[in-house]
């Protein structure tokens, strides 16, 4: 069986219908566990006080904001190369989730920044590239709304997605590329040992799994919605032509 079989909307609907209930249960339980653990059962940090509890929202949201754009890039490239409608619709479905994640990261970061840095906002490389990524998300969603023909909209948004990927990557690596600004280096890295204490690390991991599974749940739900809307438009157009 080939992966590309799921580019067929009927097969995608059947598979996603089976996966959705499990993804929903996993997302709900991980988010509830992680956030309750982080909020109620972690001690205050000796420097940051209780504001350390904001990392359980800020870090997963920021991680998702960048990676959702990269998922949209992959889906857009699949659309451009193989012309599979489901991949274009999946990219479209992911955009509002990315917008929400970027907003959460920006708001929670600003709220944490005021007591820790003395300011809600600074034109720091990571913050600025994140703000630009947010504008790209808005532009991407607006472009889908503005263009009537689905295929043309998918082509144009795919190109916009490729351009915006520069800022998604800059958001990720800004603190490494420019050794200046207020934002500290990444809290979690795949290669090095985590710089944060285990009492924060484990609830944070549970929250990250919760945000990832919430994204999977919502992107499946929203892709199914766009497939249904597309089918509805096709049926109505066929009826109008008769």
């Amino acid at each position, binding site marked *: 069986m080939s992966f590309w079989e799921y580019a067929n909307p009927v097969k995608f609907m059947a598979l996603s219908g089976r996966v959705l209930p499990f993804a929903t249960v996993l997302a709900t339980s991980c988010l509830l566990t992680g956030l309750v653990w982080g909020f109620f059962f972690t001690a205050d940090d000796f420097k940051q006080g209780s*504001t350390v509890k904001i990392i359980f*929202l800020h870090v997963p949201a920021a991680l998702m904001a960048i990676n959702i754009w990269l998922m949209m890039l992959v889906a857009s490239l699949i659309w451009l190369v193989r012309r599979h409608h489901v991949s274009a619709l999946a990219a479209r479905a992911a955009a509002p989730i990315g917008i929400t994640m970027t907003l959460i990261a920006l*708001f929670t970061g600003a709220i944490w920044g*005021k007591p820790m840095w003395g300011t809600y906002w600074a034109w720091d490389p990571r913050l600025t590239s994140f703000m630009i990524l947010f504008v790209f998300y808005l532009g991407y969603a607006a472009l889908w709304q503005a263009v009537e023909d689905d295929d043309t909209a998918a082509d144009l948004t795919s190109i916009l997605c490729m351009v915006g990927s520069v800022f998604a990557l800059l958001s990720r690596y800004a603190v490494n590329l420019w050794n200046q600004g207020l934002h500290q280096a990444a809290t979690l890295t795949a290669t090095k040992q985590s710089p944060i204490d285990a009492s924060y690390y484990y609830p944070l991991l549970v929250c990250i799994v919760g945000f990832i599974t919430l994204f999977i749940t919502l992107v499946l739900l929203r892709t199914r919605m766009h497939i249904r809307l597309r089918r509805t438009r096709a*049926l109505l157009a066929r*009826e109008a032509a008769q």
Partner: protein
Amino acid sequence: MIPDLGKYATDVLSAYAIALVLLIGLVGLSLRQSAKARKALNDAERKSRK
């Protein structure tokens, strides 16, 4: 019930409130739009069968 958040209570609570409102809003909107799309497709299919 709520842990003692000290002098940063407003900051921490407002961060959680904003994030939860945005997450719940996104989930609610997605469910509502999804239900509308399902209904629209059912109606269109019923019509096309007639």
